[in-house]
């Protein structure tokens, strides 16, 4: 039990640190310490050192983690809502409706979706809100497929047939009887969607197409660290390590939950 909760615990610790520690630090993520440009690890006042223009890397990493996690959570929730509604309607009504709705999902699956997200960034400008709406709008496809499959399976279960026989309207059956039973699997896929989104967001930010300065994110920090890694390897290793840790922990937690529920 303790072992299976370890991944989520690690992510929780990282998230809490990212939330509460930055205000306690002497430096903000964008403040420049002119006396300590490119400070090494464990420099006085800068635990993780500073970057090429003298900004505190501890504060930057924590704020970057906060932004990355916030974007990922928001985008995953967008994906959850769109995917659940779409999948539930397609699965519940079946027939032509189902076919048309899922044909669209199949079509969208064939898209080079990262390029579509980039296209959205180019079109609507690079704002952080659009980053997560854009990502969430693309990441809902898997959720829709999963929820649809669950709904189709649940439709034949006695308690749903009983509710139908008792004369409950479709909307009541869907919200009151079906969706609560889909929630577990949807949660597992939500956990699996978050690391996917973390990767997409960091990918975009790494290329300069995602989160914009003065705001920062793990993707931007990895990019900045990579540009300066011959002099300061830790500027790459710390944000990169946090990023990989978050992705691994959430993936493991999501896969475990999914496997347990599908048994």
């Amino acid at each position, binding site marked *: 039990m303790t072992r299976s909760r370890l991944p989520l615990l690690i992510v929780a610790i990282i998230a809490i640190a990212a939330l509460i520690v930055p205000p306690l630090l002497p430096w903000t993520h964008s403040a420049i310490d002119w006396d300590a440009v490119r400070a090494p690890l464990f420099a006085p006042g800068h635990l993780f050192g500073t970057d090429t223009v003298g900004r505190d890397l501890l504060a930057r990493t924590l704020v970057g983690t906060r932004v990355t996690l916030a974007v990922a959570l928001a985008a995953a929730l967008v994906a959850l809502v769109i995917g659940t509604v779409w999948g539930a309607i397609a699965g519940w009504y079946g027939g032509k409706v189902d076919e048309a709705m899922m044909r669209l999902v199949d079509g969208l699956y064939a898209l080079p*979706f990262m*390029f579509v997200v980039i*296209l959205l960034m180019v079109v609507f400008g690079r704002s952080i809100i659009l980053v997560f709406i854009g990502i969430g709008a693309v990441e809902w496809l898997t959720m829709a497929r999963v929820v649809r499959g669950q709904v189709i399976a649940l439709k034949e279960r006695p308690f749903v047939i009983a509710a139908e026989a008792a004369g409950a309207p479709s909307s009541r059956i869907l919200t009151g009887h079906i969706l609560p039973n889909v929630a577990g699997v949807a949660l597992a896929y939500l956990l699996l969607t978050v690391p996917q989104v973390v990767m997409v967001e960091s990918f975009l930010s790494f290329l300069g197409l995602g989160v914009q300065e003065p705001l920062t994110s793990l993707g931007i920090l990895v990019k900045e660290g*990579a540009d300066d890694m011959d002099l300061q390897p830790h500027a790459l290793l710390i944000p990169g390590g946090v*990023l*990989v840790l978050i992705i691994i922990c959430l993936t493991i937690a999501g896969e475990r939950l999914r496997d347990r529920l599908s048994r």
Partner: protein
Amino acid sequence: MRALLLRRLLTAIPTLLGVVILSFVLMRLAPGGPFDGERALDEDTRAALDAAYGLDLPLGEQIILYIGRILSGDFGPSLVYQDFTVSELIAQGLPNSLTIGGLALLLACTLGIGGGVWAAVRAGRWQDEAIMGTATLLTALPVFVTGPLFVLMFALGLGWLPVSGWEAGSPSHLILPVVALALPFAGAIAKLTRAGLARALNEDHVRTARARGLAERQVIARHALRPALVPVASYLGPAAAGLLTGAVIVETVFALPGLGRYFVQGALNRDYPLVLGVVTLYAGLIILFNLVADILYGWLDPRMRAE
């Protein structure tokens, strides 16, 4: 089988058309245009430029003209890389991107299938745990972290390989980008192979092969592996999409002259024709890969040919 492929091919056309129209409309909805510089152009110059590039026509007319030109292989002039047409940029960059992506796919399949088979054969033992643990780790490593990390370790630290550059595709310049690009996909393929083989080993035809007294090695190689690879084949479509996007990162990190880098530059500079051309081309490539996957199904598992 042939009917299925024909149907897939026919559904590919509206998908591709949808991509073109959607991306075209999105691009034109964008605020700001390619001629918005620091200095505002005077009315006449602007009108002349718009007319020269056909930007003054109604949107519907522009789309139809654009689709007609695409069909003849003409994606128009690049707005940022002046003196180059988009087709020329594609002709320059695509072979390099395909080299990197193709080699990475090959490496990912070799490592992934090999590792997956080994893990399935040693199911439940420490080798299985070790390989599957490594596979999970690999799928969680983004290319933009491993790429710089490899440069740090093998180029800057140990000095074994060049930091970046292309040098006409010399092998030493290719190793780091290809390995960095391949690793996440190797992990995913290993997981799929392991799961597929574990399932296939329980099937009737495998039991028959064992009952006939074949060696386990032969049972796996001749009878179990092929149907076990069906999930791997269905992963080819997403993998192709992932490799193309990953190539964008690898080309940026290692300064390789591929199409992905042109695409990022085009996106950062609102180069409509370039971005549209690359998106259309990539959508076409991904659809092509899905078709290849469909053909592979039938070859891997004869039961699917009947449907």
